[in-house]
């Protein structure tokens, strides 16, 4: 624990950025190296303020780019310290090369990623194109829906990443502005409870262990590369046990429950939307409204994007007649990633719901109750007829003629 304790109330009014900063402070990190970028700037700014005011015992390193930030994180993690950083969008894109290094080198770095659209056109608002950019990088990817979840899951992230059976970096995603700049009541843990939950850092093959000189970041060619990537994939696939265990421990401590797949109203649902981030919260309101009208609607979200909860999603969609997969990222010439993955999850199962792909909310375009209600109403028709209402893919909330692609 940091030597100077911050006196925080049991309930604080924090936005998602402050929630991430406070979780970082309480996790007693050895090195934070960061290059601030909108909308995650305050994560770094708050942390630097804590450091300036004596609340941080570890190092805070200002670097010259996001590539350098993640590189410094890789160096510090290989040296044997607890490490974290924050970024968004273009900064995340610049980090990508080093993201693969961090995962391949099995370094448990935690990244507070505030999701924002990728240019061009330049845009500072929230969508999931940066989250999708990192989805094959080998990081454990967590989707959060509110500032409270950012706080809780950032604390969990250190515990998951650093577990000896995992040793992989974890990316905690939150929606730019909708979560990062929305102040809400946050139920906090005091510094000692939070730090004890995260636990002491366990170094593995640390470069600063001089009794075992070690080389990190080696080159392997066709002789060993495949084996190391296989080992890495096995680690992320097997991390589900640790994720579940950490979530159970967190529930025992706080009463707040997290699952690898979150759902609402799915018990008797005939129609469902699958989506990430703050859209889940909005959809809960819509689900409640529809249930009052007698429409059995549900919302389901992969809390853990990677490792992808394929079996759990398939299980929860077995009794659903129509599903809309909502992707908040320009799919660049195909269906959205979530559509592909849900379709893949269902293909070897008996269920054959009508499956559609909705592209929404690019560059921070609002996802409202009314737009979501419209999508659910389309699903009602599809569930009744057993056929797609139109094409497989469509755009919602965009001005101009309708955009429809792929006939069933």
């Amino acid at each position, binding site marked *: 624990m940091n030597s100077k304790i911050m006196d925080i109330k049991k309930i604080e009014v924090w936005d998602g950025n402050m929630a991430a900063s406070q979780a970082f402070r309480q996790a007693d990190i050895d090195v934070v190296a960061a290059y601030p970028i909108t909308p995650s700037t305050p994560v770094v700014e708050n942390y630097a303020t804590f450091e300036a005011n004596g609340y941080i015992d570890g190092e805070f390193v200002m670097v010259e780019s996001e590539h350098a930030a993640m590189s410094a994180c890789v160096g510090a993690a290989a040296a044997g310290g607890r490490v974290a950083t924050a970024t968004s969008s273009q900064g995340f894109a610049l980090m990508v090369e080093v993201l693969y290094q961090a995962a*391949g*080198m*099995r*370094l448990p770095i935690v990244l507070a990623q505030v999701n924002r659209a990728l240019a061009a056109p330049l845009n500072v608002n929230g969508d999931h194109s940066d989250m999708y950019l990192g989805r094959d990088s080998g990081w454990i990817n967590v989707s959060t829906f509110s500032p409270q979840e950012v706080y809780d899951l950032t604390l969990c992230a250190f515990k998951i990443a650093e577990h000896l059976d995992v*040793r992989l970096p974890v990316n905690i995603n939150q929606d730019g502005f909708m979560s990062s700049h929305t102040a809400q009541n946050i139920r906090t843990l005091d510094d000692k409870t939070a730090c004890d939950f995260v636990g002491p850092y366990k170094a*593995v*093959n640390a470069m600063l262990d*001089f*009794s*075992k*000189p*070690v*080389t*990190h970041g*080696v080159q*392997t060619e066709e*002789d*060993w590369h*495949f*084996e*190391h990537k*296989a*080992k*890495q994939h*096995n*680690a992320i696939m097997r991390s589900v046990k640790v994720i579940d265990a950490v979530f159970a421990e967190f529930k025992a401590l706080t009463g707040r429950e997290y699952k690898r797949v979150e759902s609402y109203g799915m018990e008797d649902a005939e129609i469902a939307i699958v989506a990430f981030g703050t859209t889940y919260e909005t959809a809960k309101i819509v689900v409640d409204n529809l249930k009052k009208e007698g429409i059995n609607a549900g919302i389901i979200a992969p809390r853990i994007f990677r490792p992808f909860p394929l079996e759990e999603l398939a299980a929860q969609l077995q009794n659903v007649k129509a599903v809309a997969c909502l992707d908040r990222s320009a799919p660049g010439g195909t269906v959205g990633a979530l559509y592909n993955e849900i379709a893949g999850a269902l293909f070897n199962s008996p269920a054959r719901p009508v499956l559609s792909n909705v592209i929404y909310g690019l560059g921070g375009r609002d996802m409202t109750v009314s737009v979501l209600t419209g999508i659910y109403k389309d699903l009602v028709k599809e569930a009744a007829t057993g056929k797609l209402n139109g094409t497989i893919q469509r755009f919602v909330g965009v001005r101009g003629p309708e955009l429809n692609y792929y006939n069933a």
Partner: protein
Amino acid sequence: MSKSIKDMGWDELVQGAALFSFEGDVDYEMSQVQPEDRNYAETNSRNAYVGDWRVEKPVFNKDFCIDCQFCWIFCPDTSIIARDKKMIGVDMDHCKGCGICVEVCPTNPKSLLMFNENTDNEEALTQWPEKSEEKGE
């Protein structure tokens, strides 16, 4: 390490492809142990033969050497073998033929000269130049 890394499956390799330099813990003063007596791990790059990277090789002529140790200091691959401040020769498994040792050699004629990789060392010594009259080189 009982099993060679060449025979290991993904489940047996060190995670993150971290490579250890030595077998066992280094709980002694490494600088007091000569390289040939060190317990190098299989994965230490010392076990990698890179001699075939050379096109030209340095040949050592001990008749002119003054044991100034310049070559030992400047060699970027620690391929100059010296004992008790005496130049012994070149580690041909790791020398890549960069020629820096020849460049920094201050004797006249030089005690190290570059020859084609295929030239016999005895043959090379017979081709050694005479002392040069020019100053400064």
